[in-house]
């Protein structure tokens, strides 16, 4: 098993809050085409296997995998869809290459979340129907727009729920977890707010980011509570976009003459789905990082990792994940942040891309967004946000509400 797996091409679209000008296929085509050109491969000849990562319900298609071959160059070729975060697709590609089954594999994931009009309800559908879903409502809400008696002049809205009674938005789960995290770790709401300030500031230096902002802790603390203790600015806004990687076995990469970035470690893990039973401290991240560290030969992650991207779809998640993967002692990530240790010139530069708070929540492409930043940094192409001498980087993914699943990938610059 001496075969080594590396990333030889990356491609992505812009990230935008809405993308009414293109359909999801065209979004996928753009990112794939860019990745194939970046790697210098012709997908119709040189790529052995194609992987996409998508969730049918988010896409709005049953058996979504049937819809992908055309736009990724995979017609009548080995192709499959992983129902999960894009990082799981990287893991699948890793295995296909490592085993010798394939030499060149492409991995695509995207978000076209602006097509989905009832996200809250779709996520509630992921709650256990007997034990948990009944405790999410219905709840009454204030009436908007006066009487529900619709007329021709004031018609019933075509989109969104028109019911007077709705269920609670499932993001309350993050509020619950944050509550627990603040209590057990001693982290403060202000420290979580600083995550937002940092990431939205980092986003200014990432042309991909759609939600950059120069704000202070006061702005975050002053934004309204949505799922206490989570406030509006603690929550990453949604975004559309697509990301594609081309991976290859080392020898093939050298033949293509590209500068490879090695995928040296990979791990993944899933919690029990029972909301009342499972841990609140991102054990999925701990387990998946341990697996990845072992594979990559990392014994002291704090010392050996030069840059990390961790899931920050909710502000506290960044701090919680840093502690879970062993980059901060329990309860110390907030302090490290305040002392500047997570900045570009700090001990552990974290979410230099702007993260999900600065770029937006890319749903199933979130892990790939993290990996994209690590590859860009290890290639030395991150311009103003470039971390000096970045040799080893980590991307961590969480599958989002209401999941307790995640993955970790470790990347190294050539020769390491």
């Amino acid at each position, binding site marked *: 098993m001496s075969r080594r797996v590396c990333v030889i091409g990356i491609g992505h679209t812009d990230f935008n809050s809405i993308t009414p000008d*293109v359909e999801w296929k065209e979004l996928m085509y753009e990112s794939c085409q860019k990745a194939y050109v970046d790697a210098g491969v012709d997908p119709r000849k040189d790529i052995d296997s194609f992987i996409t990562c998508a969730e049918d319900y988010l896409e709005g298609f049953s058996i979504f995998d049937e819809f992908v071959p055309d736009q990724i160059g995979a017609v009548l070729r080995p192709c499959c869809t992983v129902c999960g975060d894009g990082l799981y697709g990287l893991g699948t590609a890793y295995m296909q290459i490592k085993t010798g089954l394939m030499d060149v594999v492409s991995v695509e994931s995207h978000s076209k979340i602006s097509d989905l009009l009832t996200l809250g309800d779709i996520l509630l559908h992921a709650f256990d129907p007997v034990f948990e879903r009944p405790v999410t409502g219905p709840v009454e809400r204030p009436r908007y727009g006066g009487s529900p008696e619709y007329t021709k002049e004031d018609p019933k809205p075509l989109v969104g729920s028109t019911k007077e009674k709705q269920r609670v938005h499932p993001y309350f789960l993050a509020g619950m977890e944050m509550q627990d995290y603040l209590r057990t770790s001693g982290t403060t709401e202000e420290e979580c707010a600083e995550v937002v300030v940092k990431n939205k500031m980092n986003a200014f230096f990432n042309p991909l980011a759609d939600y950059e902002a120069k704000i202070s802790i006061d702005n975050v603390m002053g934004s309204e509570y949505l799922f206490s203790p989570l406030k509006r600015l603690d929550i990453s806004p949604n975004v559309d976009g697509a990301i594609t990687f081309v991976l290859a076995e080392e020898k093939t990469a050298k033949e293509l003459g590209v500068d490879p970035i090695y995928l040296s470690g990979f791990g993944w893990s899933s919690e029990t789905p029972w909301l009342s039973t499972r841990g609140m401290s991102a054990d999925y991240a701990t387990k998946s990082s341990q697996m990845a560290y072992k594979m990559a030969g990392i014994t002291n992650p704090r010392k050996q990792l030069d840059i990390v991207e961790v899931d920050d779809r909710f502000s506290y998640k960044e701090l919680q994940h840093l502690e879970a993967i062993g980059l901060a002692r329990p309860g110390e990530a907030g302090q490290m942040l305040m002392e500047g240790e997570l900045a570009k010139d700090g001990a552990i530069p974290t979410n230099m891309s702007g993260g999900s708070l600065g770029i937006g929540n890319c749903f199933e492409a979130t892990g790939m967004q993290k990996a994209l930043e690590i590859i860009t940094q290890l290639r030395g192409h991150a311009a103003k946000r470039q971390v000096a001498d970045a040799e080893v980087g980590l991307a961590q993914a969480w599958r989002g509400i209401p999941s307790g699943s995640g993955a970790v990938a470790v990347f190294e610059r050539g020769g390491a």
Partner: protein
Amino acid sequence: MAKKIEGSPGYAPGTRVSTKDIVQKKISYSWWEPEVQYSWSMGQAMSKFIMGLKDGKILGRTCIKCDRVLVPPRMFCEYCYGPTDNWIELKDTGSIETYSISYLDSDARRIKDPILIGVISIDGASPQHGFMHYFGEMTKEEIHIGMKVKAVWKAPKDREGAITDIKYFKPLKGGGKK
């Protein structure tokens, strides 16, 4: 639990569950009607195509490299993976590639009048490029593979920019004979 009858063919009579059993909660089940709504952006290719239908036109995209005319149109060619090149207007005639006479609805109940449905290669497009659509003005005895057909359009005022702006395909005059 029904008693399994041994032997072949394997058959277990089971216990019938009626709507009453469900409504009276004699069996355990959970019920949920999710609120699921999407509004998909149609994108570059389909938007133009759909607007064409509204004008009573069938539009295709060409791939110069592969010498193909693509219907439905797309902005990329899935064979060579390059971008497609030009829009062209096609005739609204074609021939039946294959068909089926469908007697059941999606709930597997028998429908009154069987539906004639199939795929049509549109004249001027590459082989096997065209529509899946209904057939009309023909009997199930008359329909056959290779039959020449023509689109029957909705009146212009009723068209809304949808694949159903074509109501069905009928036999082309003089082309309907076996």
